[in-house]
């Protein structure tokens, strides 16, 4: 009478799916607050060093940040399509969409690493390693410390996301996500949306103005 996925504390799968979805949302809120601490720090230091931060932003390569923005937005779309695929019971489509998402995540990381390489070359490194000659100020140091901290932390999340997506792609090809029960897939793509969202907030404050 119990489906294999059904925990014994739940009455039916729908109930279980609702609980998991709800729990995931709470987790997302918690993650947002984790980033919020960093955004607060950024805001505080930006009010202390407005011109240095502006100089730092203008120095950052707009193209890298924006390319990454588009990569991530596209991956967000494919992650959503994967959920759509599961909902309509298209096994291969779902798997392909999930692998694409993971691939786009890797592309993001590749672009990010290229950009990091440029920063290392010019010396715009965090904290004690900072020796960027065009902005030899505390403010510049603060900006690039925050930059590395925020993008690094985001990249960590993204790496975790790529692993999750890859694993889910395998499960999708195995046909584990059915139209009746695919809440884990929904949770995964919600997590991916969170990563997207963070970049949407990081992009303007690190590359735009």
């Amino acid at each position, binding site marked *: 009478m119990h489906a294999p996925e059904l925990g014994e504390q739940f009455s039916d799968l729908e109930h279980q799916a609702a609980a998991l979805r709800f729990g995931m949302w709470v987790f997302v809120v918690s993650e947002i607050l984790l980033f919020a601490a960093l955004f607060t720090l950024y805001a505080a230091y930006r009010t*202390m*060093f407005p*011109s*240095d931060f502006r100089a730092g932003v203008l120095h950052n390569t707009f193209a890298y940040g924006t390319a990454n923005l588009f990569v991530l937005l596209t991956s967000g779309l494919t992650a959503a399509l994967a959920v759509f695929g599961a909902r309509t019971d298209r096994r291969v489509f779902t798997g392909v969409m999930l692998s694409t998402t993971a691939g786009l995540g890797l592309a993001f990381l590749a672009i990010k690493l290229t950009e990091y390489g440029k920063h290392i070359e010019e010396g715009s490194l965090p904290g004690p390693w900072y020796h960027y000659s065009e902005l030899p*100020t505390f*403010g510049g140091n603060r900006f690039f410390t925050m930059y590395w901290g925020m993008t690094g932390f985001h990249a960590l999340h993204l790496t975790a996301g790529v692993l999750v997506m890859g694993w889910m792609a395998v499960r999708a090809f195995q046909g584990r996500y059915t139209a009746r029960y695919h809440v884990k897939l929904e949770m995964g793509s919600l997590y991916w949306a969170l990563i997207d969202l963070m970049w949407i907030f990081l992009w303007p404050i690190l590359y735009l103005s």
Partner: protein
Amino acid sequence: MNLGLGPSRQAAVNELFRRVLFLPPQSSTMASEIDHLHYFVIATTIAGASMVGLLALYWVLKYRVREGLAPRSDPAPTSPAWLELMLAGSLLGLFCLWWLIGYMQYVRLRVSPKNTLDVYVTGKQWMWKFAYPDGQSSVASLYVPTGRPIRVLLTSRDVIHSFFVPDFRIKQDALPGRYTTAWFEVPEPGTHQVLCAEFCGTGHSVMRGQVVALDPSDYARWLAAGNSDRVVGSLGEDPRAPLGQVGGPSLAGPTNVEGASEEDFPPAQLVNLVRVGTQAAAQQGCLRCHTLDGTPHIGPTWAGLYLGRVPLTTGEVVTADEAYLTESMMDPLAKVHAGYAPVMPSYHGLLSPGETAAIVELIKDLRDVPGRTEPPAERTAEGPPPAAGAIGRAPQERPALPLRQAPGQGPMPPAVEQGLPPPGLQPNPPPVGTIEIAGPNGTRRTVPSAIPVQESKP
């Protein structure tokens, strides 16, 4: 708390409360007022806690059952909403009253009055160092005159410390890289312990000191006991670190200030802060861009700058107070004076807190020098201030206490402007001998110029 009693009865009630609550003596002008609020709050706390406790006890005794619970015929009574709201509302009213009184007192504690005598206080692991505007500096003992508001400008060389004088009911954190202020006024001569109240490492609990309040004539003699024309070293390094010996992470056991002998406290080392400031400004190259006589140059002139209104490149206008001046040295590009290029490098780590204080003191000393191109005016300490400079500061009175004018003060000789150091600073043998000071009850006693801390008994 005015209970409608006569002044002597009121004093007796005050004294009774103070002793019952183990409060230290009320040795500053603000202390007794703060204590009155304290009595009010604590008495309410004790009364409230006892009332709640006793009422609960009464009901338990009254409605207690030993065995055999009967099912209730009625659902037990609930408290009517109006009662809850009334209780909560009146309590909130009481709390807000405390907040109001407390906040007003707090603002008075934080905002120092005009005409303060300024002392620069530097905390470092694990000692307090005091630098006076007209020359002296001392370690562990802060000498102040009675009957005059004293402002301490606090900073730290390393981590956060907190300057705490229980007898005055004041406390203020000393933060590295910036200045905070506190003030107090001592009506009676006496000695009051200074404690460090923010954890700062192994020597935290021995980072003590004292405030020695002298009556103004004694204070003047104390000042005179050292010759401020002869100064010791620079403020950058401590000539001796009396508490440093017990410090260090490998500290075996702390030394109490109380138990320490007089030798642990070097008598006042006499340093003319303005002159040290001038010297530091010259050595560090400040004077390559800033002038002291109002002549326009690469950077804004220091003449008449202090407490002037500074228009920023952002369009804002700020007051050039100690905080702004310090920030401008540590992080010059944060607030750039409109009309000047953002070219100044940061001096963080290059200037010691002592030098920073000295340069700020130098700028303060130049506040009555007119800015812009007028030729430097002759001036005396007591004389009415010349019109405010171009930066537009309202004229302000000079401190009332006669401060002895040191030779280095006033408009700088051209040599200084060209970056040459002023006449060198030579070591000063510690002043010998004792001075007589007034004690608390009209007594007089003879003490060396550094006085061991006395236990103040509640």
